[in-house]
């Protein structure tokens, strides 16, 4: 069930009506939200609802045990078991076949070729998100940052449909306190929620879909059939597409959760105006980068232990962050590129070298990020290298870019240079409007988007992770 579809729209209308009608009891409200979330997730495959419930049960019971025992050693053993259980689910569904294929290649290279038991496992939508959420909950309970929650709260925390399949990764410390009492809606929250939903719809259904279908997909499918200019513009196009696609999902998720009375954290903050890769990761997929920082980078030792250890930890964190996206070498290279550049930035700063002028830093950072996106988007390492090779051919004919596509790339970039609090300012004005007028305005915006959107809606890029 995709957000920008009529099916989801009807699902939302029913869920909104039923959940708020039952809000006299906070417990019933949460039960209904949980059922709605399972219906939402079951629309992909009902079998995976069982996996979601199993995952919630593992995390709920592990946290209860951690909370109940006093011995530090036993608590540590329990959190380790819980984290391994989560990693086991993630590893089995996401990496089992990949690692077996690599093992097969190594064995074949050593002259011991074997038929290994590949399972062709279907990847449950959003498994990377809900397992990371489960792990952070366990670690937070272990560290004493949150108390162990009830079974209902933990199951809802992991299943809540707005963030279930593509984030943001909402921490237990953010959401569990909100589950404790019946939420209230205020006009500002509603106005901002509607604005985020409509804005997300525009970015996904118009910009990301148009760029994907008419520029990025055809060029990446067969780079050898395109000129250097086509390849260059398609790379920029993908940078804009993935931003508009993923940030659209986050915007809609935040907006939908807000209409049920819950606050999700910001997940994007004009990432392409970053002046360094470190700055980029403070602006892009913030819930993942902060997760990696708090639970992996700091866990590895962070910047304690000297400069060499800090650089090792940065590199390891980004490599594993790349692998989180999928079992492919291209994701590892993407993570390695981001990690490597951040190591250079750290060494540069430690050496006391002067920073680049702001505009140059933004342009350079954007191009490093776009280089990384080529590996991220390409099917294989060889395909990425062939793509980069094609960009060097020096054939500067335009064969694919139309004025509309160029305009959409420009528009996607222009969003990054608007005032950071522009949306909040608009929402403050919207909340003063009478409800019927705002309703008509929302309908007009949706109508406009529907008239512009590409026929059909492709799944969000981050659904595959």
């Amino acid at each position, binding site marked *: 069930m995709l957000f920008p579809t009529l099916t989801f729209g009807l699902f939302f209308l029913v869920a909104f009506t039923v959940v708020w009608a039952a809000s006299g009891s906070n417990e019933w409200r949460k039960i209904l939200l949980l059922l709605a979330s399972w219906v939402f997730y079951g629309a992909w495959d009902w079998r995976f609802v069982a996996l979601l419930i199993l995952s919630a049960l593992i995390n709920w019971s592990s946290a209860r045990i951690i909370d109940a025992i006093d011995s530090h050693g036993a608590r540590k053993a329990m959190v380790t078991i819980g984290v391994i259980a989560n990693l086991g689910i993630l590893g089995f569904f996401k990496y089992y076949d990949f690692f077996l294929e690599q093992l097969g290649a190594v064995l074949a290279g050593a002259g011991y070729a074997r038929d290994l038991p590949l399972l062709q496992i279907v990847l449950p939508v959003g498994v990377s998100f809900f397992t990371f959420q489960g792990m952070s909950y366990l670690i937070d309970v272990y560290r004493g940052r949150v108390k162990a929650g009830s079974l209902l709260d933990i199951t809802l925390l992991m299943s809540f449909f707005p963030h279930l399949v593509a984030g943001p990764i909402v921490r237990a410390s953010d959401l569990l306190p909100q589950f404790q009492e019946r939420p209230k809606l205020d*006009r500002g929250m509603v106005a901002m929620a509607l604005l985020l939903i409509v804005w997300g719809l525009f970015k996904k259904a118009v910009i990301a879909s148009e760029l994907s279908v008419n520029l990025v997909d055809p060029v990446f499918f067969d780079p050898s059939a395109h000129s250097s200019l086509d390849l260059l513009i398609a790379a920029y196009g993908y940078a804009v597409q993935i931003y508009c696609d993923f940030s659209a999902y986050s915007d809609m998720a*935040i907006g939908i959760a807000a209409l049920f009375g819950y606050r999700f954290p910001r997940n994007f903050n004009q990432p392409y105006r970053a002046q360094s890769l470190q700055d980029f990761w403070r602006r892009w997929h913030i819930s993942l980068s902060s997760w990696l920082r708090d639970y992996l980078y700091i866990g590895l030792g962070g910047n304690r232990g000297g400069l060499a250890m800090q650089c090792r930890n940065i590199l390891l964190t980004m490599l594993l962050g790349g692998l989180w996206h999928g079992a492919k070498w291209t994701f590892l290279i993407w993570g390695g590129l981001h990690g490597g550049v951040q190591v250079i930035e750290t060494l540069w700063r430690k050496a006391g070298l002067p920073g680049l002028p702001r505009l140059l830093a933004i342009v350079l950072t954007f191009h490093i990020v776009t280089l990384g996106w080529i590996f991220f988007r390409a099917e294989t390492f060889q395909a990425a290298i062939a793509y980069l090779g094609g960009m060097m051919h020096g054939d500067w004919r335009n064969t694919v870019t139309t004025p509309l596509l160029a305009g959409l790339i420009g528009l996607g970039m222009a969003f990054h240079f608007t005032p950071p609090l522009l949306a909040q300012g608009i929402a403050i004005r919207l909340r003063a409007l009478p409800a019927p007028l705002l309703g008509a305005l929302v309908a007009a915006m949706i109508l406009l988007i529907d008239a512009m959107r590409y026929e059909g809606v492709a799944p969000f890029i981050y659904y595959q992770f």
Partner: protein
Amino acid sequence: MARDAHHHLHSPVDLGVADDRGGGLRWASVTIAVATITLLFANAGTLAGWVDEQTPSDWQLRASDISHGWADRMDRIGIGRPRAVLHARWKQAQAKRFGDEAPAEAP
């Protein structure tokens, strides 16, 4: 690695400027209801298209008849015209070229 801790609890839906007006739920409900009804009138073709995509059944055939009848009625009144005009403009924009380039076929 990003070192500066960002504030987790900061949500984009917190506007930072207090609003004393109550009745947020009622205001939201009316807004959503008006938007839904407006789209039911002004975008009836999309609803008919969605019904056609559902698995065929007696219910689906009946719903298809009703939704197409509704869309035809809205078209006769002219309510669907703004969307049709916008869509035609968008198609024109899609067809414009810098020169003789032709967008590649999607794989």
